[in-house]
């Protein structure tokens, strides 16, 4: 295991016998899965944790944000981030859960420019609201699209054509 992972685990207090260091929101280290350190945290602590990972541990490359829909669970959406430390050549995965009624997490646009576009995509697909992102216009969908297609309750066959279908017409009767 990469030494940087030990340092993160120690810093975020997963193995602290006397509990969390003061002022740090709870972060749970779920261990290393397939070479990626997995951290689970509350939405409130997201921005501060990522800022610390970026500034103290060199996680300078924002790879990815997406969500996983777990219908029926009280905290329905799991927002998943992947970050990379280019100097240490390791990745970390952050997971945070939000309820369907209030799917809000803080935007990371203040830390990484790359977060802007990807948060737009996640907003399109799952309806996660990234508080602080000034531009959540649709990016892969179009303006006026109703619903969030990657939610499990969005039917796969549903169509919302921008241009109404023309009735079938024979090429001979023109």
């Amino acid at each position, binding site marked *: 295991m990469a030494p940087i992972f030990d340092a993160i685990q120690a810093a975020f207090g997963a193995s602290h016998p006397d509990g969390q260091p003061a002022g740090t929101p709870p972060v749970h280290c779920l261990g290393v*899965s*397939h*070479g*990626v350190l997995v951290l689970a945290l509350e939405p409130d602590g997201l921005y501060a944790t990522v800022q610390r990972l970026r500034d103290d541990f060199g996680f*300078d*490359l*924002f*790879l*990815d944000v*997406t969500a*996983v*829909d777990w219908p029926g669970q009280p905290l329905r959406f799991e927002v*998943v981030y*992947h970050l990379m430390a*280019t100097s240490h*050549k390791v*990745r970390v*995965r952050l997971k945070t859960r939000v309820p369907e009624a209030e799917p809000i997490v803080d935007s990371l646009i203040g830390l*990484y*420019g*790359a977060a*802007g*576009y*990807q948060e737009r*995509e996640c907003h399109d*697909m799952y309806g996660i609201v990234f508080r602080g992102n000034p*531009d959540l*216009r*649709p*990016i*892969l*969908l*179009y*303006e*006026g699209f109703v619903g969030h*297609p*990657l939610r*499990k309750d*969005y039917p*796969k066959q549903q169509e919302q054509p*921008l*241009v109404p279908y023309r009735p079938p017409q024979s090429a001979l009767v*023109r």
Partner: protein
Amino acid sequence: MSAELISRPPIPNPVHPVFTPSRDDTVVVNIGPSHPATHGTVQVIAELDGEKVLRTDVHCGYLHRGFEKECEDHTWHNLIPYVDRLNYCSALINNFAYCDAVEQLMGITITPRTRYLRTLLAEYSRLADHLTCVAAQLMELGAMTAFLYLVTVRDQMYEHLAALTGARVTYSYGRIGGLAADVPDGWFTRLEVILKAYEDYVARVHGLVDRNRIFIDRMRHVGTISTAEAIHWGFTGPILRSTGAPRDLRKDTPYLAYGELDFEVPVGLYGDNYDRYYVRMREMDESVYMMRQLIALMPDGPIMVDDRRCVFPDKALVYTEIESLINHFKLVMEGPVVPAGDIYVAHEGANGELGFYIVSTGEGVPHKVHVRSPSFVHMGGVHRMLDGGQLADIVTTFGSVNMIGGECDR
């Protein structure tokens, strides 16, 4: 036979730009989504002061076809043709990255021959992808001869890959646990002929453009981006390397057989269009160098692992014994059972870090497949290269980013 005009109200532009003209003497223009210079469907809304670009709003999504939604409705095997259509210039890299992710989640180690073959074919795909990108970029500057040289050799590669996989562009050649088939007789002999042709044609292109005054004037110090800014905006692959950062997943986190190969990571000086052109040209040479090593190292042996969870049984057995018939039936109808869990696997795609984040609930159908596609991330940061430049330079800079609609819009 009267052609009656169907008059319909015009469809409004679905994109509202984030800005209006900031001064009286500037104008906001719309470029694309269907424009010869965007090769693909992407829309650039630019505020212009004369011919100078003040700011841009890049909008993609016109090729969105619900890839990730579709994945959640098919078995792990049936996705392989879909992942081909992400980056259709180097479909095999997508194939292998996806298969690698599923295999790692299942705990499968592929056979040595497959490992080397996948590495070889991934480099072959990278070669074809870079050839396409450089050729398109040169053509947009009017260099038709260089374009035709590069596309000639690329077409030989497509035909050669068709001899291996049966398709020119969308190969569907990877399998969970191996490959669709072994290489046919004489394939490596022909490969060496094509690599020689590649060297011949690329030498001519080097001679035509490298020291060409027109080319340098259009490319040098145009679309510049610094390393810190490139990382901030999520750039990876040749664009990040063109800024001077030797970041390459093949070296940083070696996968497949890359740990055993000798190769260099070419980097640029200024992070401009010329560097992106040259980094791609040098990377192609490194790919050829790696492929020659791989041909020499290529071991014999099976290409599929012996694992009944994902590999189809021999057809003769399916017809003669009930266990294999059931095995075959369950693999087709229910799909291979992938243990519950999630994994992020990234390969060095031709454009940058191609990552697959897959979530399984222990069924034959994925719970979620998410693609970290380099082109989409690059579209989020490309305005940093376009702003402040000339209107005509949007074309060349955009060409050097190599946006592939299939993987950008998914």
